[in-house]
């Protein structure tokens, strides 16, 4: 949707005014909204943006229009079922989906783990090292220093290999 004022930029500010009992809706871009003196909070969370977004009727229509060309899933269907239709939905549903992911994933939106480009190889020594480290920590905690010393030596030996 384009800004109703300049008709160039995408409308990002959606206003609903009540004037003498009559509802008036306006859709403006950032610049035109600023010119009209509409204050837009800049450091709001995506959740706030989404929920205010969802409050205005045309926005819901916008979201309702989100439909994956590959699997035919609409955003509204996804919201009612909770399951996505195909991998492509993650791109098609864009920010609206990102807000949902952020909420479900304790604020996180970016993967940092294993990937086809960053494969994890299993190092046989790794597990032994982890086990020894854990046992060493336990030995120190329970003040069994004799055992701790032995474990430390074993760890050192593993690193030499």
């Amino acid at each position: 949707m384009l800004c109703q004022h300049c008709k160039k930029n995408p409308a990002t500010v959606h206003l609903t005014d009540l004037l003498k009992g009559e509802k008036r809706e306006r859709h403006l871009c950032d610049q035109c909204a600023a010119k009209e003196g509409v204050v837009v909070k800049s450091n709001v969370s995506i959740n706030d943006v989404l929920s205010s977004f969802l409050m205005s009727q045309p926005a819901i229509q916008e979201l309702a229009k989100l439909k994956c060309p590959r699997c035919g899933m609409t955003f509204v269907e996804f919201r009612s079922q909770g399951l996505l239709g195909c991998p492509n939905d993650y791109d098609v549903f864009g920010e609206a989906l990102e807000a949902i992911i952020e909420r479900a994933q304790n604020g996180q939106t970016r993967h940092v783990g294993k990937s086809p480009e960053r494969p994890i190889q299993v190092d046989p020594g790794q597990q032994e090292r982890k086990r020894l480290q854990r046992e060493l920590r336990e030995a120190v905690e329970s003040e069994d220093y004799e055992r701790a010393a032995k474990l430390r030596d074993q760890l050192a030996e593993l690193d030499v290999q």
Partner: protein
Amino acid sequence: MSIDELAQSRGEWLATGGPMHDVVISSRIRLARNLADHRFLGRADEAERIEIERALEAAISASAYGAQTFYVEIDKADPLDRQLLVERHLISRQHADGQGSRGAAIARSETFALMTNEEDHLRIQVLRRGMNLDDAWDEAVRLDNALEASVSYAYHPGYGYLTACPTNVGTGLRVSVMLHLPALKMTGELEKVFRAAKDMHLAVRGLYGEGTDALGDFFQLSNQTTLGRTEDQILSEFTDTIIPSIVKYEQNARQVLRAEKTTALDDKIYRALGLLENARLIATDEALYLLSHLRLGVVLDRLDGVNLDTLNDLFLFIQAAHLQKRHRASLAGEERSLVRADLIRQMIHGRQTTDN
């Protein structure tokens, strides 16, 4: 290998002898994966489901893991067989009760199972007895890498591995540890553990996962978020922090019970023994509840002649599908209670006479 043979054997995850086995029953790793060029299952028709299942089955057989597994077509399997696989934690209840073409490649050793067409195209599951997440994780990585070599997974540069439900996206990793916490239950401190777990964004579930009650003081702890942390960070939270502290907490509660509430503790244990040795009809829930007290008695050396392996076998064998499979007959509710009570008396008694 057949499902009938499984019914006669001890499940890997319930075997004794794993690390911290006095408190930790089993460790489980689950990875959710989907094929890049297919729709997710909610949107796939039967023809596409079959394609997905075939592609995955072929990838499994082509890998080094093919020879270690047997494949069960879950949609064509007998309901009792499906139930048996659920009781052994080899497939999920959702998978057993689902619709359409789906299957599971199950390791003969029962140390891993690959579910096809569950909620995601592929669910890699690795099970280990006791506290052994590191080992389970290594196996999961090897399985994942082996399959990734022949199929291409749905992967997004920002979101990571894509899953049907956004709650699994990213690593697709669910880490679960099954704990036996009877002493914390008795001392009323369980709520504190659960509150702390919830503060750490962990889910606490019963013996059979989502929506099941905490039968027999067994609790499953698992991570709820899968995105924004590396697999190693998710795992080490469990191995270095959460599990050791809960284990210590339970062990302390056990020591306190033994030292300060000896009679009350023995009363619980021996009442359980009395009921299990004498009952002629017993339901699963009651049996699990009593066996849990017996297990505490054995671990704390308050009870002679019953061993932990027998008890762990019983936790599995008294359940509906195992009971009927082993009895080679389909049994109605009341008959099951009778056969269950007989089996318990036999197994507890058998051990007592051979051990004494």
